């Protein structure tokens, strides 16, 4: 029998992998993928709690997180395309027009 802590530790480690990806990578698309990693690891936590506590609310929340992730991916990738059209790069170090 796998206990709840194993799932929590697993999900925490993948969440931190996502954080490392976001703060170290410069390719905007890979930064997006790291955000997906983080969203998914949190989903694992929610499903684990839902299953262990015997409450369906966690799985409903995962359903909504997936919907928001789909919306976020569509808008985010549209932003990447718009940026690439204007600057011919997806390197986030060169996309700094909001910085002053």
């Amino acid at each position: 029998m796998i206990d709840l802590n194993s799932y929590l530790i697993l999900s925490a480690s993948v969440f931190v992998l996502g954080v490392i990806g976001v703060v170290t990578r410069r390719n905007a698309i890979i930064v997006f993928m790291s955000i997906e990693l983080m969203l998914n690891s949190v989903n694992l936590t929610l499903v684990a709690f839902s299953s262990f506590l015997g409450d369906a609310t966690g799985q409903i929340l995962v359903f909504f997180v997936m919907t928001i992730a789909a919306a976020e991916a569509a808008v985010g990738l549209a932003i990447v395309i718009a940026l690439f059209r204007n600057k011919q790069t997806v390197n986030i170090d060169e996309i700094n027009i909001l910085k002053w």
Partner: protein
Amino acid sequence: MVNIEVVLFVVLAVLFVGSGIMVITRRSPVLAVLYLILNFFALAGLYLTLQAQFIAVIQIIVYAGAIMVLFLFVIMLLNLKDEEKLIEKITARKVLAVGLSAAVMFEILYIIWISTPGIERDVAKAEELGRVEAIGKALFSDFLFPFEVTSVVLIVAIVGAVILAKKKLD
């Protein structure tokens, strides 16, 4: 005696973490997407070990099927020629960032460690909960309003994506 449940969990966990590491270390975005799909399949397997069948199925259909195809399409559309300009260098700042992330991880692990709930799982009840029937009932009764709001969010996302990706606004 080796428990099949433990073996399954360990294999899926290694796949989950290993493909996660591959996602953040690959230079080519296409390879990263493929490893991310592997990651999602491992996660769907983990959901199945938790008796969340519905979530496991939509994980594969929505994430691995739809969102990842979107990622692949965008990578294909962008046709990155200046790949060599994107070569990542290991700088002091990045080492610090990884160190800080590791610190966050140890904080989370410490919190999990000191707050061990030790909940016993009722597998039969969990199996009951993970079915489409249970989720659908909750979704269309207690969570009807959030469910309807979701459709507004999706239509905003569609309009936003079309407007952002359009060449010229007129």
